[in-house]
């Protein structure tokens, strides 16, 4: 039985050390080892996007990353999106547009949306729907989410 591995990484700008088994996913490490439960588990096989985090500059499903792969990486989770001053414009837009119902998919949508708007502040509806195709929502029917993303674009330019 392999032992625990010591991993040094950076999460939301904070140098972070943890111990994990090699078989544990980054999602398990975030939630069960580090107590960062903002990142949600949906399908646990890479289809639903609920566990989306930014991993060295790209969004990934953290259920399909091993915790040990986080060594020397930069990770941003939903906990790193808001600031002490308040919600990020993407979060504010999701609230104002009622772009959530049960909320389980929301952290993944917000992390994925922020990653899109950080690089493509003028993404059109088609591009938004394409970018977010890896995030499933079983409540909203997506229209409110897409409207929230378009609203977030306006808020981020204001």
């Amino acid at each position, binding site marked *: *039985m*392999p032992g625990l*591995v010591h991993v040094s990484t950076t999460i939301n700008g904070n140098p972070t050390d943890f111990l994990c*088994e*090699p*078989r544990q*996913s980054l999602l398990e490490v975030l939630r069960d080892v580090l107590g960062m439960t903002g990142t949600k588990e949906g399908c*646990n*096989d*890479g*289809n639903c*996007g609920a566990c*989306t985090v930014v*991993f060295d500059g*790209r*969004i*990934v*499903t953290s*259920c*399909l*990353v*091993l915790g*040990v*792969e986080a*060594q020397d990486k930069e990770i941003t989770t939903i906990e790193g999106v808001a600031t002490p001053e308040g919600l990020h414009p993407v979060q504010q837009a999701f609230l104002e547009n009622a772009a959530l119902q049960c909320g389980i998919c929301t952290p993944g949508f917000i992390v*994925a949306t922020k990653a899109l708007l950080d690089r493509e502040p003028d993404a059109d509806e088609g591009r938004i*729907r*394409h*970018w977010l*195709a*890896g*995030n499933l929502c079983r409540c909203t029917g997506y229209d409110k989410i897409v409207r929230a993303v378009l609203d977030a674009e306006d808020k981020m330019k204001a």
Partner: protein
Amino acid sequence: MEAIEFTTPKTIDEAVQAMASKGDRARALAGGTDLLVQLRGGRRSADLVVDLKEVPELNEISYRPGSGLTIGAATPCYRLYANADVAANYPGLVDSASLIGSIQIQGRASFGGNLCNSAPSADAIPPMIALGAVANIVGPSGSRQVPVEDFCTGPGRNVLEPGELLVSINIPAPAANSGANYLRFIPRNEMDIAVAGVGSAVVLDASGQNFVSARIALASVAPTPVFSKAAGDSLAGKAVSDEAIEEAARLAMEDAKPITDMRGTIRQRIHLVGVLTRRTLNNAIKRARGEE
């Protein structure tokens, strides 16, 4: 997932040693989008997972106008479509890289992993076959090269021996007046597995009116990706015409040996091969003529 050991070799030699140390109990990890699902679901098991993302040769994309493109086996899809040389010279590869899984999956999944996973439905494999790609393999007893059309031997099976690694994939430099395209049919717009897929590559003469050569490959219609040599060869030397394309589509349909399953029926899949062969040939011709 059962307990595993994990190692991160820094060189090809270290990676081969690690793979060889456990034989068929070692699994190579690139993006993990297939492997981790399989290990968790019990479809594959391993004692040792060898992370290849710190071996430089497996993580490089290099293009030289003379010798062509080398894609490190662990290079994720997004790096293909973000690479200016790939975008300019291999739009047929970009077609695949930008439709595999989601943006999240494209951040991790690699063409090398798609090839080694050897699914009949793999979207990266038909365009690589169409473009004449060759797999560079290294193992305890040295290195060897295998044309991508000969790599897969069955669903989830391939020519790699225990201890061997796919290092990279070479794709020849595009010929003058050449073009390629990959299309798949899925009932949704995104995030699905091909009911059928076709990759086509053509070389035209300087007038753009005649085929010099063509290669066509099919996904999801046999136990492995299919190189439909007869379909591509039928076009060589012919004038570009609907009749020539129709004949190639007919030959591609003959090479499709699909099954009926939850994604589609035999009849539908063979029909799709015809439709997608025509469409990908027409798109490849447009690209060869510089019309798109």
